[in-house]
């Protein structure tokens, strides 16, 4: 079983309150916020590792990100992935989900073989949830969204339980296939000290645009069908009236406000 896990290093959510807009350029200021793997990235990896333990094979972890994301891939190797691929090139900057999926698809095609590709249902930062299905389209393989459990894997087919509104569906899909996972799918393992030491000896390859045969006009701002025309921080503050004191007094005021609101 050859498994590829795609991850999206993103600025640490614990530091999002420090994100600011440059008052002149209106560009997002997020320098100095370290990037982390999201909870869904780790679940996607965990699922790949579990299947490898059961069926044999290897797990490759892959990310399109700036060079600093090597640390995140090292963490994935320490968790148990066998090899890491960092797709990094200045011309990838500004890629939307379409262009990102294109880059990932070129890198995966460069791998010798793959049976299953895993990813999170959505990333921490953009949270569009687009890349999984778009990548599958570029690879011309089926995709399965919102996988809450991988139930069976045999005869060249994977059986999954997929979340939907008010219920779930059991789907059976031919391999190779791309699966995006939800929070329910598993609880990711912790990284062991041994894992960290072993990670040092595992291959971590960087592929640039040239390595992938990608031209500048295919990716980045030029190659992306969408453009971000402006960015702003929404104002969500209200003129709050704060009450403290005896519970009876507080309740009286709340009741009054409720009656005003709903008559």
């Amino acid at each position, binding site marked *: 079983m050859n498994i590829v896990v795609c991850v999206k290093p993103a600025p640490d959510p614990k530091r999002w309150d420090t994100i600011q807009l440059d008052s002149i350029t209106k560009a997002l200021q997020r320098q100095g916020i370290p990037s982390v793997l999201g909870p869904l990235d780790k679940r996607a990896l965990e699922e790949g590792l579990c299947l490898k333990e059961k069926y044999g094979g290897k797990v490759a972890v892959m990310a399109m990100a700036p060079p600093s994301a090597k640390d995140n891939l090292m963490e994935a190797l320490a968790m148990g992935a066998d090899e890491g691929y960092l797709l990094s090139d200045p011309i990838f900057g500004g890629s939307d989900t379409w262009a990102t999926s294109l880059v990932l698809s070129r890198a995966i095609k460069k791998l010798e073989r793959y049976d299953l590709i895993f990813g999170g249902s959505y990333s921490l930062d953009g949270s569009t949830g687009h890349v999984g299905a778009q990548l599958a389209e570029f690879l011309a393989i089926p995709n399965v969204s919102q996988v809450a459990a991988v139930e069976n894997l045999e005869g060249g087919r994977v059986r999954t339980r997929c979340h939907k509104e008010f219920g779930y*569906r059991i789907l059976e899909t031919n391999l190779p296939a791309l699966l995006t996972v939800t929070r329910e799918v598993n609880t990711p393992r912790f990284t062991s000290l041994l894992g960290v030491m072993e990670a040092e000896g595992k291959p971590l390859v960087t592929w640039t645009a040239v390595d992938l045969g990608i031209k500048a006009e295919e990716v980045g701002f030029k190659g992306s069908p969408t453009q971000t025309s402006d960015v702003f921080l929404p104002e969500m503050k209200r003129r709050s009236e704060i009450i403290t004191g005896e519970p009876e007094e507080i309740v009286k005021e709340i009741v009054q406000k409720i009656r005003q609101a709903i008559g």
Partner: protein
Amino acid sequence: MKTKLADYKGIWVFAEQEEGCLAEISLELLSAAKALAEKRNGAEVCAVLLGYKVEELSNQLLAFGADRVFLADHASLEKYLTLPYTRVVGQLILERKPEILLLPATSLGSDLAPRLAARVKTGLSAHCTQLDINESGELRQVVPAFGGKVMATILCQNHRPQMATVRPGVFRRRKPQEIAGTIENIPVEIKSEDFAQKVIETHWEKRPVQSIEEAEVVVAGGAGIGNRQDWVWVERLAEVLRGAVGGTRPPLDEGWIAEEQMIGQSGKTIRPKLYVGVGLSGVIQHIVGIQDAKVIIAINHDPKAAIFQSADLGAVADFRKIVPLLVEALKKK
């Protein structure tokens, strides 16, 4: 070959249905499409409906704003599957060239939309909270990022259609009109490679009596509730207000609420007349889902809780003391 933008006309909505039932979001999207059409010289509004024996749903779509329904009625489209649906809608886009296509950000739409955008090579934005037409006639798509901390305006300038997904509850359906419009049957040609997947089983859980997007009153709790026993106070307060129960991520993880009750950036967007938040700190991911509520009341023992900045009325107190009294007081009327 450059896309000739002027060839693309009309505003389309993907109409979601399951088991012959139209999803509410389909009507909400028609309402959004209608508003956009008015700003786009009265462009034609079309609904794209796929399924099996679903023709009668077309009339609902016509009543709620569609000028035309593209109907693909075929046994192989009875249950949603990514590849057959992408094939049919993708083909229709290539032939009929819509300028805009709106899809629901439901589990179905969030799967179909990106696959479709990749197939027809165009841009897609996710979870739009505002849609508008700019001076150049382009679709302005306002989307959240970083959990709603940041909002961005997305354009798709050189590709068509301009595609966007919208979560349920962001727009309101219009009042039904007298039916005027056309139903057009479209051919269904699915290729053998589209059958790489099949549905083995569909399982439904019990639906809540009142969905959180439609409720006029919503009472939501957060991690501060602490345990399942105390969660009943959230439920009792909702009950006495005849409202729906919602929550943040931790109550979902604890199993106190279902996925459909989670409010916020990765959950539901609500716009009730009254929202009461109990024992929740007010992280930005939650606030973006409640900011359209008319009145926001917050109860939290921590005076520094962020929720107070987004509330109309904030009570700094232990909810265990306040909510039982509040429930009694509201019972009296």
